[in-house]
């Protein structure tokens, strides 16, 4: 089997992250536009996207400020939208937890939907990769996505307009994530986890603070783990 060097792992990660450019650029530009309309200057918009790197939470914070919510409500609500990042961190820990602290600090800062989804998909396919190869892949996935998140925010703020809705780029988000998801559905347990999560996400869509997403994610994880446990017990009968 060909070995994956760190350099080639970085470029594999880069290729895995690249399709998300069509998602990140319009979304970032839209953030720049909305932030400018809310009164942020270019430097504040740049800092917001650089420090927080979480689109949905940034939009939530802006919206609540425009609704004149108290500042603690702004912070708590936007952080609630980001609670899924805890699950991403937990899910990456078996793969990247052995890194030295300063590298873990850096990885943590760079955890977003795209870097997480691409990396976990690759780690499940190649669990034998050494630690530094896994890190190189993760850094590769961030490289096309995160600089463009920041640049796109600034571009939106400067231009004052995003990509027109006729291009239907709103739907790039579901398409890229579904394309990412499909190859990960390899077992019955994966399927059950995904279907459970979809049903719960739709059922709980009305809950505030994005809590429906969290409940659906946890419900899907429990369902998947339970199916795996039962299947394993059937395959390996007690001695």
């Amino acid at each position, binding site marked *: 089997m060909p070995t994956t060097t760190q350099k080639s792992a970085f470029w594999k990660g880069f290729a895995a992250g690249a*399709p998300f450019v069509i998602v990140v650029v319009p979304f970032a530009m839209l953030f720049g536009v909305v932030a400018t309309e*809310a*009164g942020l*200057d270019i430097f*504040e918009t740049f800092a917001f996207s650089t*420090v927080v790197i*979480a689109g949905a939470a940034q939009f939530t914070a802006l919206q609540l*400020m*425009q609704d004149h919510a108290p*500042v603690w409500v*702004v*912070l708590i609500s*936007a*952080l609630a939208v980001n609670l*899924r*990042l*805890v*699950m*991403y*961190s*937990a899910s990456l*820990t*078996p793969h990247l937890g052995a890194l030295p602290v300063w590298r*873990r*600090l850096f990885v*943590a*800062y760079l955890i977003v*939907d795209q870097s997480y*989804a691409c990396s976990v*998909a690759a780690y499940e396919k190649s669990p034998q990769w050494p630690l530094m190869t896994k890190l190189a892949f993760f850094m590769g996935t961030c490289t096309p996505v995160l600089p463009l998140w920041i640049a796109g925010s600034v571009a939106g703020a400067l231009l004052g307009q995003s990509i027109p809705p006729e291009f*239907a780029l*709103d*739907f790039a*988000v*579901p*398409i*890229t*994530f*579904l*394309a*990412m998801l*499909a*190859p*990960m559905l390899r077992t019955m*347990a*994966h399927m059950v*986890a*995904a279907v459970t*999560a*979809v049903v*719960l996400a*739709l059922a709980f869509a009305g809950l505030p603070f994005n809590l*429906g*997403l969290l409940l*659906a994610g946890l*419900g*899907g*994880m429990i*369902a998947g*783990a339970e199916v795996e446990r039962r299947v394993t017990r059937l395959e390996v009968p007690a001695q």
Partner: protein
Amino acid sequence: MSSDVTQDYSIWLVIVGLGAGSFALRYLFLGVIGSRPMPAWVLRHLRYTAVAIIPALVAPMVVWPAATGGAPDPARMAAAAVTLAVGLISRNVIASILAGAITLYGVLYLLG
């Protein structure tokens, strides 16, 4: 458009607070657990994080797209179904993105 939020809020408090809070969420497990072994049942659940959270993230966007004001839209439904189907069959991310995009623009064009 609307009011200037920087008049009413310390925008830097929001930026720094949200940045620090988000970082804490991202670092929680990587930093606190690190390389310590986790129990088998926890690892078993974590194996399903991605396949649960990604569909949960996407499902409402497919069923109630923001672009149509939340009205279910045949073009977006078809595009999502084709993306998933091509992905399951081909296991190829780029092929399924292209198939989904062609379906989306194709149906949007046909339905005018």
